């Protein structure tokens, strides 16, 4: 929000193009048989896309640190949930 409207418009359009390009990439990669690497590639692309939306569309790039911590807390919570659950499931 601390950007000039014209600069913000440019940022949004560039992000949109990047997001669509990454969509094409993740879709295309799913048809290349790479085994477990497919999942890694898909997930990496999703995280990249999410980062673009969080930083640019949702303005976390310019946000107050308090806001960033709150925004990150949900994702941090899931990471703990999945990591600890897997530490059980994968070691049985």
């Amino acid at each position, binding site marked *: *929000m601390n950007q000039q*409207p014209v600069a*913000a*418009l440019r940022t*949004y*359009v560039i*992000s*949109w193009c990047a*997001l*669509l390009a990454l*969509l094409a990439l*993740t*879709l295309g990669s*799913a*048809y290349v*048989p*790479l*085994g477990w690497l*497919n*999942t890694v590639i*898909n*997930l990496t*692309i*999703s995280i990249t*896309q*999410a980062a673009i*939306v*969080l930083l640019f*569309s*949702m303005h976390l790039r310019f*946000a*107050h640190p*308090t*806001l960033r911590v*709150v*925004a990150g*807390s*949900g*994702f941090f*919570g*899931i990471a703990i*949930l*999945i990591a600890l*659950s*897997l530490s059980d*499931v*994968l070691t049985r």
Partner: protein
Amino acid sequence: MGSTVAALAPQFDDAAQQREASRLGIWIFLATEVLFFGVLFAAYTITRVHDPAAFAAGSRLTNVTLASINTAVLLTSSLTMALGVLAAQSGSRRATVGWLSLTVALGISFLAIKGIEYRIDYLEHLIPTVNFLYTGAQAGRVELFFYLYFVITGIHALHVLIGVVVISVMAVFASKGAFNSDYFTPVDVTGLYWHLVDIIWLFVYPMLYLVRS
């Protein structure tokens, strides 16, 4: 209504501080939304780790073409939403209404495509407890995949529907001139919600539709 809601609440020093407080509030809500979907993602992860082959078999039965189109629709709606917030911030009434209406149209398109997808799933007998009919290997595990598929996409679609309703209300407010460069928080906060629904879909899409190998 513009003058009543636009007024600075007494506990704030200025409009900027009031905006920051609203953003903090919506982000706390969004963090709980992330946790809400996170539980479903965790259930998905554990089930899939348990039986990767059945999940690949299930995923191959989903409609990747419609889902990919829908991803593009949602990403585009996120752009139009961002432009709507920008227009509200610059106090341009017509542009705000235009962008918000376009966002609503894209949101409805997403739901319509999702509906077509569900219809195809129904015809292909893929709906657990309704008409699930799969005779291949590990049918029970494939059915479990479809349980997760319907719960995750269904709850996500509900969030899109709520977004469509809220954005429509914002468009009506905007048409009455409720927003200006000092007061556009409702549009801003609605935009943050809409972008988060978009982010969640960016993970749902590869999880459910792209498990091909």
